[in-house]
Each structure stands twice: as C-alpha cells, then as structure tokens.
C-alpha cells in the first residue's frame, strides 16, 4: 500500500504534468483518477495535438476507439496514449459529425500501428481517415451492409433474418427476445 507521502508526491508530479501539458498542448487537461488524464479537443487539431503529445513523451498509442452517440448525431473518437516516462495515460477525445465522419489520419506519427487501428475504426464504424492509404477491410469478408458496430444497426434483427428459422422449435426462443 502506498503511504500518504507517496500519494501526495504522486499528485504533485501529476499537477506539474497537467500544468505542463496545458501550456504546451494549448488545451485544458482534466484529471479523472490516478494516472488517468483526459482532454477534449476539436477534430481538426488532432494531428497537431498528437504530435505535441508524442514529443512530450506520450509514445505509446494504446488504441483508438469510436463511440457512436446516436442521439447527439456525433461520433466520438478516443485516442489512448500512454507515456513510458511519465507513467500516465492521456485520453484525447474529439467529436466528428456522424453523417460526414472525416478526420485526418495520425499515421505521420505512429505509422503502421495507427493505420491498423484506423482500419478497424473505418471498417466497424465507417469513419474515414484522410491520409491513410490502407483502409481495406480487416476482419469482415464480403460484407456489403452498413458498418456493423453503428448503434442504428441492430445485430439481433440481422441475425434473425439471416440465420435463424422461426419454425425450428429450438430457435424459436431467439424471436421472443426484445431489443
């Protein structure tokens, strides 16, 4: 168990880092919990901020995730960056329009790693990454429908139509489930 002095030392270090990030990145950094910082930025600044963060020691791109906010009409892109030197996770969030999901690729910083993460987001959510030369399908084969992880694509309905038979007594139960 970390002692009190350790805790206060840690939080002091983190405060310093937050101030440093605030000035260098030009964004306001929020503190979620120990070793978890997050910030919300405009989508056109993503390459700029990521480059600066990389230079400040956030070298490891953990993953890129997309959250589909259906009611708001936005896709939220979440970039998780880990710093080996500061030992802090920085989460960069940005929102883009759901109907026109375009954002610049960050492959200038992380190369093939970022490209692969973006390929996944493109395939499963339909987000287009400008500047990524390789947005070919990754997991799905011969898929022509809408991007399957969108909130308005109902998997259960799709599977029922495609796979299950209502007359089969053992598959009948799948047709009674709501949602």
């Amino acid at each position: 168990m970390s002692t009190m002095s350790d805790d206060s030392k840690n939080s002091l270090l983190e405060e310093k880092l937050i101030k440093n990030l605030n000035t260098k990145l030009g964004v306001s950094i929020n503190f979620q919990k120990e070793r978890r910082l997050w910030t919300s930025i405009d989508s056109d600044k993503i390459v700029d901020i990521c480059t600066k963060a990389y230079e400040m020691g956030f070298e490891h791109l953990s993953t890129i995730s997309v959250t589909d906010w259906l009611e708001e009409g936005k896709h939220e892109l979440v970039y998780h960056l880990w710093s080996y030197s500061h030992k802090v996770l920085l989460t960069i969030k940005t929102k883009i329009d759901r109907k026109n999901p375009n954002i610049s690729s960050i492959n200038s910083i992380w190369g093939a790693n970022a490209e692969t993460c973006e390929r996944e987001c493109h395939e499963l959510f339909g987000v287009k990454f400008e500047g990524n030369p390789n947005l070919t399908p990754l997991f799905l084969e011969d898929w022509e429908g809408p991007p399957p992880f969108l909130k308005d694509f109902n998997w259960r309905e799709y599977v029922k139509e495609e796979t299950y038979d209502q007359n089969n007594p053992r598959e009948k139960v799948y047709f009674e489930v709501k949602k």
Partner: protein
Amino acid sequence: MTEINEQKVTGDFSMYFGPAHPGSGNFSIKCEMRGERVLKATADPGYLHRGFEKLMEYREPMQNAVLSDRVCVLEPLQWNLVHAEAVDYLMEYEVPERAKYIRVILAELSRIQSHFIWYAAMSLGTGFMTGFNIAIGYRDYILDVLNLITGGRVYPAGYICPGGVRKDLPEKAENKILELLPKIDYMRKFALKQNPAWLARFKEIGTLTKEEAIKFGAVGPILRGCGVESDVRRDDPYEIYDELEFDVPVMDDGDAYARFTVGMQEIEESMKIITQSIDRLPKGEVKTPNLKPRVQFQKAEGEIYIRNELSRGEGAFYMVATGQKTPYRVKIRGPSFTHMIPIIEHLLTDVAYADVPAIYWSMYQCPADVDR
C-alpha cells in the same frame, strides 16, 4: 494454397502461411515469395471475429463476465480480471481484500499456463515435438488446480466477476497451488535449457529495435525483449501489485530468442507473486456484500480505460456506461493486435520462408484477441 504471379520472373509466387497450417492458429499471412525468400507479407485476420464489443452492448455485466473468458482462450482469467475491474470502477464497488489476492493468484497461474503454451507452440512450429508434449503436460497440472477453484479447466466462466470473485477458494486450495510450484519450476528450467537446435532456430531471427517496438506499439514480453523496461503491473498498478515484490525481466537483443527468454523468466516472477500472495492471503469476504447474481448498470454513468498486464502484454477495456442496463460501448484492446498486424508485416520482409514459423510464434500470438 499457392498461386503463381503473372509476372515474368519465374519463382515469384504468393503463398499463405495459415489458416490451415498446423501451427498457425486461426490466422493467415499472405507471403509474396521469390524462391525461398519472403519479399512482403500481408496479415489477414478475421477468422475469429465474433464481435465481442457489440455483443457486450446487448448483455448485462455478469453475463459479460462469462463472455469475457472467450476473448482469448489461453488467458481467460486475466480477461475476466480486466472486465471485472472496468465494471468495479463504473459501479463503484469496494472489492474485499481477500478477493483481490485471489484475483492476483489466479491471474498469475493463468499467466504461467499461457507461457507454457507459448513454449509448446514455439516447439511445435519448429518441429520439436518433445517440447510441445512436455509443456502441454505440465500445463495440465495447472489446469487441474484451475478446475478445482473455478470449476472449469480452461474457461472459468466469469470466476473473477464484478465485485470480487464468485466463490471462495475451496479447502486446501492454497496447498494445492504451493504443490504446483516445484513442477512449474522444473518446466521453466527445461524450457530455458541452452538447446543448440533451439538457439539456431531463434537467435538473431526477427530482430526488432527499441525505437521500432515503441513506434509500432509493441507491449509485454515483445517490448521487454527489445530493452524497454515496462510492465503495467508496476507502472500502472492495479489490485495489489504495488504491495508485492517482483522484478521485470528485460533483454536488449530484440530477437526471437530474447522475447522467449523474457517470457520464461517472467514465470519465475509470477511464482514469486503467487508465494507472496498466498503468504499474505487475508481472511474474510470474497464478494462485495449484497452483490446479486444479476448486476445492471442502471445507476452507473461514466467511462473508464482499464489497462492490465496480460501474459501477452497490455490488454485493455474501454467501457462507457450511460445508466442503461447494459454498457453503452465496450472497446477491447488485445495485446496481439499490434503484434500480429503491423509488427509481423514489418518483420516478415526479406526473410527465409523457413523462418516464418519461428518469427510468427516468437510474437506470442493469439488470433482470438486480434479479431475479438
């Protein structure tokens, strides 16, 4: 599985490594060949895509705990732990101290058996069947103990559940685990023996530099084999890892042999962790009081990114809850994702085809967590 290119150069063709290769798992790599050399390789994942992230949006946390086993067959307990921690944070559960220790013991046992499979797979890939048989045999001793504790040999079915663990350790389970340790140690020493054939197959093969490893997002034993001292258990401690003493083995060579050696040295650290945890195992509850089998996110709102050190490296859950019964969005980061797509494509340029299995297995791959 081979197709001859239309180019005029004879000896140019493309060839698939996997998915029907005996040692490839459900994954395939398309190699463009010139004679015996691989010029360029393209990874082709997707044979195991089950869409966990979407499936979890339709299920409640306790059902997701059961589902989280299946993310990776070889380390189900550790995936249980990542999922449980994400739910714990969002639901604000106070996990009892005893449950934390049990979680760590099981996660480390799971890590050891996964490393044995690594050794087995590497032996299989290079035609050393004795190594395969012995490693799988010794792994079975661990599976027997897992069966005793969780009720399933491979799949614990959400034994590490949100709010603690589903059942307390059975009687004498601590002794059974301690009895395992000499066997594990024997197997570890066997795997680390300086076997000349082994050295010839893996030394100076698939070398990854430190800078490349960081840029491509390598994690776990692959990153530590390149000389970066990074371990989520120490840098970003979860559960009780900050109270335990263990080392982080690192090697600077960055080749297949270094990665493997780091993995095998980790077994010793895991054994240290298990002995310490059993020594300090407190008594008491193993579940959050009043935890019902049916858990729903009805009050929880927010999001969390939980990182854990799995046997393959950093595995993570990004979970968003919006007060509905089920999570709004789940993103799973599998450790093999970066290893198997960008890094393997990078490493498999201009190598002999006979080295492909050696490099492939030294990446400690699990196609299941690439595809999810």
